[in-house]
């Protein structure tokens, strides 16, 4: 019997020129941080990629001051047309250097190169292009009368889509005339630092974008700094709540994009083969490190066993391994801490009585890895149906009627996204109306576009990013 063995097809690392250490990007220049430096590693091999500075309170203060100066002296006085020119320039440079960014993103984050190459980086550039177009048209964006910037924006982004989240945050902030202090996640700071080079290359006025690296305390310093006018955070619900508490009673505004436990709902009249693809894309895309991942599969009882067997067969063809190999479908778990959390929750799933299955693929000996895993026989009270696992783990639940599907889908403190699979258009509309989720996909999943707003209900946060709606949090309006 012949076997189609795919020979290794690694993307070359040569395109990335990594420095051994990186400083903080403040006022248009790289400066040493005063904290204890830390290492950024490749989660696929645990190889040290670079040393990164830690920003202390004093460093954050310097960054906020630089941003304030840039705001009052340059950026707030510049016409929207000219701000747009800078954003277009950044977008074009991102496209020109796309391969470099994609390789570095896969190295630092562990995600497959096919995703960073085809999704993360092109979408990041697209967000800059999209927001560049709004920069001189804000009065016509239906934001309210006299839209104007807040001033200095503090932005804290997660490790799952480092460049894409940076673009979601920085592009609308700059388009609306704010200046930025951004902190990338401590496990994935490198593409943000490469972006700092892009800001230099684009001749962006110093201080308009400042990038400070570090962990929780650095983020805390941004949140607490009196010179910050607005905060934008993407990350866990726990940290989001801390931020909300910290800024209550202050004049600071915030948008929070937090966790999710999305239901992907498959009806018996669904296009089954495409639904299976949608389920796979929903939970195994980016190793399941996706806040809007379809981590709960709600499947109509009459087709549950068929969907289950088709899904398992499909998972047998998923290729898990070297993130830089062009044929890799599922890469490495981003960090040991995240792997530990996934292991703990899946152990709990087994302990609570759900049936565990994984695709049995070989895993590399070094680095952080987890096999694509499916739990069947899951009920709403299991922790794996309630808590965000943020890994390649799917919980399968069943339902009998559309009403039951809605009730179960909404029976979660989260409300970021949901998916509906049915050939019946009227049911799609009815379901979309009932589901308490910021994004509802019909017969597809995990589709993103700069023109489309994104954000959550309930504990998944507040505020919208992307589209015209994504400009709103970055402006104040009225007299």
């Amino acid at each position: 019997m012949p076997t189609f063995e795919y020979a290794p097809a690694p993307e070359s690392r040569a395109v990335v020129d990594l420095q051994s250490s990186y400083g903080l990007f403040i006022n248009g220049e790289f400066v040493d941080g005063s904290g204890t430096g830390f290492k950024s590693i490749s989660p696929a091999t645990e190889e040290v990629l670079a040393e990164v500075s830690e920003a202390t309170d004093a460093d954050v203060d310097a960054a906020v001051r630089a941003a304030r100066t840039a705001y009052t002296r340059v950026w707030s006085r510049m016409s929207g047309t000219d701000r747009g020119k800078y954003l277009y320039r950044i977008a074009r440079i991102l496209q020109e250097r796309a391969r470099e960014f994609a390789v570095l993103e896969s190295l630092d984050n562990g995600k497959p190169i096919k995703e960073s190459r085809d999704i993360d980086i092109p979408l990041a550039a697209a967000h800059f292009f999209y927001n560049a177009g709004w920069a001189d048209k804000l009065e016509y964006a239906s934001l309210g009368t006299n839209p104007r910037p807040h001033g200095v924006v503090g932005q804290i982004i997660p490790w799952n889509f480092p460049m894409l989240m940076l673009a979601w945050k920085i592009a609308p902030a700059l388009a609306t005339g704010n200046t930025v202090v951004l902190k990338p996640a401590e496990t994935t700071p490198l593409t943000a630092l490469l972006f700092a080079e892009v800001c230099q290359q684009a001749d962006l006025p110093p201080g308009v974008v400042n990038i400070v690296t570090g962990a929780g305390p650095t983020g805390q310093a941004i949140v607490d700094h009196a010179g910050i006018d607005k905060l934008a955070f993407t990350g866990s619900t726990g940290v989001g709540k801390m931020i909300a508490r910290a800024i209550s009673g202050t004049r600071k505004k915030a948008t929070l994009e937090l966790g999710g436990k999305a239901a992907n709902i498959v009806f018996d009249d669904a296009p089954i083969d495409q639904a299976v693809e949608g389920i796979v894309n929903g939970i195994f895309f980016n190793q399941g490190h996706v806040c809007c991942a379809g981590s709960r599969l709600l499947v109509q009882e009459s087709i549950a066993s068929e969907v289950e067997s088709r899904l398992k067969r499909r998972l047998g063809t998923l290729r898990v391994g070297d993130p830089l190999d062009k044929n890799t479908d599922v890469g490495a778990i981003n960090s040991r801490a995240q792997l530990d959390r996934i292991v703990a929750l899946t152990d709990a799933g087994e302990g609570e009585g759900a049936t565990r299955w994984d695709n049995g693929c070989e895993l590399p000996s070094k680095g952080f890895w987890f096999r694509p895993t499916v739990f069947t026989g899951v009920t709403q009270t299991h922790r794996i149906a309630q808590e965000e696992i943020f890994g390649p783990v799917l919980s399968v639940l069943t339902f009998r009627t559309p009403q039951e599907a809605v009730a179960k889908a909404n029976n979660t403190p989260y409300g970021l996204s949901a998916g509906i699979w049915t050939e019946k258009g009227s049911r799609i509309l009815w379901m979309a109306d009932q589901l308490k989720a910021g994004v509802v996909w019909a017969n597809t999943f995990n589709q993103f576009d700069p023109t489309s707003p994104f954000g959550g209900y309930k504990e998944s946060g507040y505020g919208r990013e992307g589209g015209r709606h994504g400009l709103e949090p970055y402006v104040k309006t009225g007299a």
Partner: protein
Amino acid sequence: MSTSTDLPVAAATDATARARDLLGVTRLTNQALTRWLHGLPGVDQVGCEARAAGLGTRSIKTTSKQWAIDLAISMIDLTTLEGADTKGRVRGLAAKALLPDPSDLSTPRPAAVCVYGDMVETAKAALGDSGVKVAAVATAFPSGRASMAVKLADTKDAVKAGADEIDMVIDRGAFLSGDYLTVFNQIAAVKQVCGDARLKVIMETGELVTYDNVRRASWLSMLAGGDFIKTSTGKIQPAATLPVTLIMLEAVRDWRDLTNRQVGVKPAGGIKTSKDAIKFLVTVSEIAGEDWLDNHWFRFGASSLLNDLLLQRQRMSTGAYSGGSYIADDSPSTAY
């Protein structure tokens, strides 16, 4: 709904009995067939095309590329289906099948030579017992617009002349008007007269247009006894696209799960480059599985594809691109 066909009742007895059994009905009516075919899960066009595009991004390099090129060569039905075909041209094609690359005798041979019925004898004589099969198009190819008697005579004629495989066309008019029973009966009747020859059922997917139709036609063809389901005649555009082939591969996979019977797949028309061929093989491997990675179960209907595969094969063995002048061909393309 009743339909009239001018078939002898006995012709399709076996297939009909099998179909009744599978559908769980006492009488195989058009209504029963319609219910069954329309009960198949739908195909979401966007999702299907996205899946095919995703498979198309697989990067096949070095040893796996070498392996895939040889496999693809061995899966070709080397085809000439022109009004201007002559015995000389068919002999030239047969010679090419026997010795695809005179500069490298390790080159595998294509699976078959595919010709019109009147050329079967010539092809058979040229190919002898080489193992390269002779496939004949029949049943008033390519339109299929002839009486059943003519279609059966066309088939018998080719089989009698020694054809190992028969490539028939379905009545797309009947299919599109919802007369599935006629399509079923015709396939079953042709299968009956094929004897030992394997039957490929050409659905002409470019005329069926929707993926739902492709899925239904695939299941109908398999139910009626087709040994292969084939996309196209090559005379209609679009011909063999990757998404259509993907739907057909899902169909043969699911059909085997249901019946334990394996059916082959043949995309034909429009596959011209090695890169394209490899995308199809990736799709075969990841959708239907490795059991189909064999020229008994998967074929490419093509004419110019072989030369590009040979060019790539030479490139991989010598490390340099040659060019059309180094690909011996009895009817060289002017494109080189």
